[in-house]
């Protein structure tokens, strides 16, 4: 398992691309796991005939979970999200194949001694970007640090 240390990270470095097939089952499993019962995420007839979509589609928290998994692949278990924002441009339908890419755009150690990387991520279908995401992500500053143990005044996301 990868355990990324802050000193190993450079501004501009790119993360490995993740590709994933979004099956109908994946869309439904993700929506139900985060307890989103909107018909848009499990009822193809409703999505197509009532809402005018091509198919059911991935919900917001499911996309967030994809980004979190992507960051885990990069950093290992000690990486911790502090802040995440989204801009969704297009929905991701069942049957599509997504690719997630990202790069480090800023690094910083705050006054509390917490090491942060700011990353820009995209989730795309083919050449079309569906979602843009910015994340403020804490990394272990050395082998003895664990950002997950920070709390209160030592954690300023």
């Amino acid at each position, binding site marked *: *398992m990868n355990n990324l240390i802050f000193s190993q990270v450079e501004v501009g470095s790119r993360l490995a691309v993740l590709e994933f097939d979004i099956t109908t089952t*994946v869309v439904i499993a993700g929506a139900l796991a*985060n307890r989103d019962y909107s018909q848009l995420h499990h009822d193809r007839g409703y999505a197509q005939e009532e809402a005018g979509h091509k198919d059911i589609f991935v919900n*917001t928290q499911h996309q967030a979970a994809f*980004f979190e998994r992507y960051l885990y692949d990069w950093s290992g278990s000690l990486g911790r*999200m502090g*802040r*995440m924002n*989204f801009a969704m441009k297009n929905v991701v339908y069942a049957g599509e194949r997504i690719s997630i890419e990202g790069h480090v755009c800023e690094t910083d150690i705050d006054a509390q001694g917490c090491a942060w990387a700011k990353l820009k991520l995209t989730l795309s279908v083919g050449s079309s970007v569906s979602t843009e995401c910015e994340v403020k992500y804490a990394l272990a500053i050395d082998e003895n640090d664990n950002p997950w143990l920070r709390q209160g005044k030592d954690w300023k*996301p």
Partner: protein
Amino acid sequence: MNTSTAVPPEVINLIDIPQYCVISDIEVNTASIRTMCAAVQNSNPVYWDRDVALEKMGAQLAPASMLATWGRPELWAPSRDEELRALQLHFDLKELLNLPFSIVASFETVFYAPAVVGDLLRTQQVLKSIGETKKTRLGSGRFWTIEMEYFDSTDQLVGVDIFNFFAYGNQEY
């Protein structure tokens, strides 16, 4: 048709006043966590192996991105007659302002503390701001910002979802 551009006082009075303060009807739980991790093939052992979680984190924690999961109501409960919606304040505003359609213009989550397996989170919804009437390609309407705040059972702030909505109607507003 509502032709006034003034925000009604019943809406102004909601700003910064917590609404729908409720304790969740579902605990943070490993079954939901594993289903979510399976849906995205997240192999982080902290979410699959209790012993690893206790050794590395000191507790079984939920993925940060699942925050909203722990504040969503069940579809049905024996004590309720009506279905509750996850962000009821937003639907209240749509009704109060006669703006039937809406989109999420942007969305941000800030993660202050991990959600721990077994805990029941408390949530509240707060209208932070409401904008002037605006015309966009979707129609005439207003932007507003609602924060969904999550607290653990010790009243520690776990996280905040910040939604910027644009709600609009078919007619000139």
